[in-house]
């Protein structure tokens, strides 16, 4: 699974699952902490659609954790002040890179994909209730 995809699933739908995974398996993987969870900023670059150029809209607060095993670095970055999730994500990133505990991760991610599909379906339906029905206006 692409990193973009699994980070999205854990951050949006699986914060508790990520933290539980870290608590359960951290003793099974050797790692050193490069940097403890710490707050910082990410500058957001956007593409505008008038001239199709780039500009910076502003920064967002993030929490970052870095760990490593040898030369392999596990990185956990998440919006806002969230040390526990950042720490758990750095561990999961390291696991994916080292290709360990993949089965356990894939089980969790499969459940999160289901959770996501239920959420998106329900949220989409809720939003579409506010869609204007012009046919109805003409009746």
């Amino acid at each position, binding site marked *: 699974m692409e990193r973009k995809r699994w980070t999205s699933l854990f951050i949006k739908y699986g914060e508790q699952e990520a933290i539980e995974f870290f608590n359960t398996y951290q003793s099974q993987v050797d790692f050193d902490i490069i940097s403890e969870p710490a707050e910082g900023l990410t500058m957001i670059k*956007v593409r505008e659609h008038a001239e199709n150029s780039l500009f910076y809209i*502003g920064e967002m607060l993030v929490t970052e954790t870095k760990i490593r095993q040898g030369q392999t670095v596990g990185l956990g970055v998440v919006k806002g002040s969230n040390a526990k999730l950042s720490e758990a994500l750095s561990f999961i990133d390291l696991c994916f890179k080292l290709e360990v505990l993949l089965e356990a991760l894939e089980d969790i991610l499969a459940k999160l994909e289901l959770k996501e599909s239920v959420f998106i379906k329900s949220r989409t339906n809720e939003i579409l209730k506010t869609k204007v029905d012009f046919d109805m206006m003409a009746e």
Partner: protein
Amino acid sequence: MGYVAVKGGTKAIQASVRMYKDKQHAAGYEIEVEHIKANMNQLINQIMSEASLYDRDLAALSILQAEGNMEEAVFLLRAHRSTLPRLHYSTVTNTRDMFVERRVSASFKDIPGGQILGASPDFTHRLLDDDQSFAGNKTAEAYTEIPHTHALDALPKVIDYLEQEGLFSKKPEDDREPDDITKQSIEFPSSRSERLQSLTRGQTGAVTSLGYAEIRGYGYSSHPNIGEVRVGQQPVHIDPFDTGDAYYIGDIELTEVEAFMPADEDDMDDLGNTEKTFKIGYGLTFGQNETKAIAMSVLDYSLEHPVGDAATSDDEFVLLHIDSVESTGFISHLKLPHYVTFQSVLDRVRQTKGEHGQ
């Protein structure tokens, strides 16, 4: 009269701070940051946008600490921002990936995906209602799936429709690195990226007022047509190891506006014939800030296509006066001691009077 440095305000200042804190808590009860987060969304949106820092918790804390004084809250948030390291730059964020929660067009009734009103105060009565209690009106409704043709994170843009009609020419992607006004002060004439960054963090009232002035006749003087206002959740990614396998780090709420402006200058087609087309004024802000985003789109167009010596086409005039911290900071500093500089003015006036009296 000679200049004598003095001190002696320390005790008075300490007492003033105590009195200010006492006044803050005079009612005997306090609201929590969580209350502000839960009930003052629009205020949080405005503060985050003007502070140029997206974090709802910090924005709520700044509002509480500033007693609801917006300029002070923005100042606090900007000051806090300056204490934090910048760890990452995002990959290019494109609003075509936004999970749209509201999208309306004032130009076309039938747009692909439809007019989605979302959550908006536009349709509420502007009458004070003393019953602000939460009605808990989430009554259980039978689930009926609403058919739709487009996923909300893949809604086509209204400008695509104009482009298909040959009424708007999309520019090729310009991937030049943007300037960053938080790293280097704006230089004039400003670049497009400096203008957009400055407008999006401008004070809401100032941006709105200048946008209004521009339409009324102090600039381009034309009524723009809003092609699209979209509000939604925008995913942000980073790729610190430059591998192309990016990390998702969270969603932020954005408001985007594309305003159609009939172009004064004609475009040239492949055969060398001139033809009338539309140009776009662009607005994008943190949070749901629709009025500001619309005004930003008006000012963007005005600065990109200057008209004579109109004030709203003058980038130095617009960009240097819309920043909340700079403008309120300068104005409010006027009440601080200016004893020495004023003494000098006073001396000159006294001297002139003396000369005239001789």
